[in-house]
């Protein structure tokens, strides 16, 4: 499976069921360690969606206040 698609699926699961976040993060840590990846970067990919959601809402507000001519 394409890793980006897999990441998007995991992000969707975390967004839908926040209770599983810790469990998935634990799995990510083990996967990262097993494959020599950066676990911090991998975990940030999972926690980022909440930040990205805030960014998207702020961007929408800016576009609403300053609409394109």
């Amino acid at each position, binding site marked *: 499976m394409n890793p980006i698609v897999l990441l998007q699926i995991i992000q969707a699961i975390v967004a839908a069921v*926040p209770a599983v976040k*810790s469990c998935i*993060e*634990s799995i*990510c*840590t*083990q996967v990262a360690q097993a494959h020599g990846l950066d*676990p*911090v*970067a991998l*975990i*940030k990919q999972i*926690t*980022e969606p*909440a*930040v990205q959601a*805030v*960014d998207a*809402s*702020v*961007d929408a*507000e*800016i576009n609403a*206040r*300053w609409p394109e001519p």
Partner: protein
Amino acid sequence: MKRIAFLLMLIATMLCAGCGPSSADTAALVARDATVSANATATMLEGMQSVALVLYRAEQEIQIQIAVSNGEGKDSAVHRVAVVRKTWEPVWDAFAKARLSYSVLVAVINDKNATQAGIQSAVTEQSRRMTTVTNELSIARSRVQGGIQ
């Protein structure tokens, strides 16, 4: 007389050995304390992340309001918001590292071969990471409160 003294010494030695916890008890206590610490951290992290997101949103909102009240254009507002997002990068990094230390601690607790020193080291690392998150969040909170006043 010597025999009585020897018996008394033997009894004292046996009593002393029963006084303190055995190494198995100590290991169980360390694991239990580490579990409590990990559970408390998981709850704290969720709460702190929620607070952080509210502050993050508020700080960007403040910059939009400043841009509006100064009669600035869209580019200026986008730039102001981008500066806020850049400022918050260390906070999100601190959260990620705290989450990683939590995952490592949980893995160590569940590892049957983990040593007491290993568990205590993971607890210390988690505590250190949580302190960093708390400090970063405290700085951000002060900055946002300063922007509101």
